[in-house]
C-alpha cells in the first residue's frame, strides 16, 4: 500500500494546478466545496483495448449522469506502456477522447506510472468523501455494485 501517498500527492498536485494561483478572496466568495468525488483509474493497455474501453465507459456513463459528483479520470502508464508514444500526444488524445465520449470528467495522465500498483487487476473506481478515501471497486461494476456505489455516494454526500 506504499503507493497511496503517491496517489494523494498526485491528486493534491492536480487540484493545485487546476485551481491555479490562490486569490485573496473572502470566505463567502469561495466556490462550494464538493463533499464527494470519484476517481477512475485506467491503465494504458486497457485504454488501447476497445472491449475493455466499452466496459469502462459503461461505468463512466453512470457516474457522468450523477448530479453534483466531481469525477477524475486518470490514465496510468509508464515509458514502456506508452510504447514509445510521446506523453504530450497521449495527453492530447486522452483529453480529446474523454470530451468526445461526452464525459464531464477531469482528464489526467500519470505518465510516470506512480499509480501502476493500484490497477494490477484492471480499472478501479475510488470514492472520496469529505477529503478522505472511503472505498474502491474493481471495474467492470456489476448492477449490484453500481447500486452500492450510488447508495454510497448518496449517503456520503
Amino acid at each position: 500500500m506504499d503507493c497511496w501517498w503517491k496517489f494523494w500527492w498526485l491528486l493534491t498536485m492536480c487540484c493545485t494546478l487546476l485551481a491555479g494561483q490562490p486569490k485573496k478572496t473572502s470566505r463567502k466568495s469561495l466556490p462550494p466545496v464538493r463533499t464527494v468525488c470519484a476517481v477512475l483509474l485506467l491503465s494504458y493497455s486497457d485504454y488501447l483495448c476497445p472491449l475493455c474501453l466499452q466496459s469502462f465507459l459503461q461505468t463512466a456513463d453512470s457516474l457522468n449522469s450523477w448530479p453534483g459528483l466531481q469525477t477524475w479520470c486518470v490514465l496510468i502508464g509508464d515509458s514502456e506502456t506508452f510504447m514509445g508514444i510521446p506523453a504530450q500526444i497521449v495527453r492530447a488524445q486522452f483529453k480529446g477522447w474523454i470530451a468526445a465520449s461526452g464525459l464531464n470528467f477531469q482528464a489526467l495522465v500519470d505518465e510516470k506510472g506512480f499509480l501502476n500498483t493500484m490497477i494490477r487487476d484492471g480499472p478501479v473506481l475510488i470514492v472520496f468523501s469529505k477529503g478522505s478515501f472511503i472505498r474502491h471497486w474493481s471495474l467492470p461494476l456489476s448492477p449490484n455494485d453500481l447500486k452500492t456505489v450510488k447508495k454510497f455516494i448518496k449517503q456520503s454526500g
Partner: protein
Amino acid sequence: MYRTIRLFIIICLSCFLFTGPETAECREPWRIHTEEIWNIGGEDSDLIIQWVGLAVDQEGCIFLTDRMDYSLKKFSPDGDLLARTGRRGQGPDEFLDPCQVSCLGDRIYVSDIQKPGLSVYDKRLNYLGQIMIPHAVFSLQVMDFNTIWISSMMHTDRPMMMAFDSLGTLKQSLFPHFSLKKSFIEMTSFQWQDPDTVHVVFHWSGRTCRFHRDGRLLWENRELEKRKPETTVINDIQVPVGIALKNIQTDPYGHLFVLGGSEMPNPGRDIFVMDKNGKICGQFTLEESSHMILIDEKGYLYSRGDMGMSLIKHRLDYPDAMLPAERRY
C-alpha cells in the same frame, strides 16, 4: 526446316511481347522521393484525435474516420475541415469504433470494428442508412453500388475476402491459395486494380499477391514474408505478435506500394514499391510511422503523423523509369 524457322520467329515474337517495358524499367532500383504538401491536425489542435480510415473522392475531398472522436470528417483537398458527423453510441449516425471508409459516387461507406455492418452517408455527411453485413469489417472497398468487398478476421476455413450486395447478401467469397495452420489467424488488406484483379497483402505472414476475380492466383511475392512468425496464444487462438505488412495501394501508373509493419527495419515507415508483376523495384521511408497509406487518383500519397493526430499529404517524385514515355522529362 520451315517449321524450325517458324518456331524461332514465334519464340522471338513472344519474347518481344512478354518481356517489354515492365521488366526493362526495373533494371535499376527506383529512387522515389516524397515532398510534404500539408500536414493538418497535431497535438496542439483538436481537429483530429486519432484517425483510422481514409478515402479520397474524385474531386480530391478527403473523408476520414476519427476513432477516438467517434466521428466521420470531410476535408477539402487543401485540408480545410468541411463537415463532421457522428457521436458515441449504437444508433443511427453513431459509432463505437469507426474504422474503414470507402467512397463511390455520392455515397460514403463507413465500417465500425465493434458493430457489424456499414453506415452509409452522402457527400455532405448526411446519414442515409445501414447495410447489414454480419462481419466486423477490417478492410473495405466499394466497387459498385451492388458489390461491396470486405475482409474480416481469417481462420483456417474462412475466406480472405467477401463481396456483399447493397442488401447485405453474400455474393462471392475468395479463399487464399494456401492453408492457414489450425488455430492460427490472419488478416488481409486489399485493393482492386480493376473489376477483375485484386492485390492482397497478408498482414502477419507478409505475402503480397494478385488474384483474379475468380480466385486464381496470378502472382505472389514472398520476399517480405516472415518465415517463422512469433505468436502468442489468446483464447486458444494463435495470434502473431508483429505485423509484417500493413496495406497495399496502387498508384495511377499501376505500381504497387506496400507499407511495411512492425517487423521491418523502420516500423510503419518503410514502403516497398513493386512493378505490375510483383517485383520489388524500389523502397523509400516515411518520416513518421503510419498505420496505412492511401494513394489517390491524382497520385498524392497520404499517411499518418503524431500517432493519428495529424494527416499528411505528400507529392510523389518519380524517377523517369517509373513514368510512361509521354510523361518523362
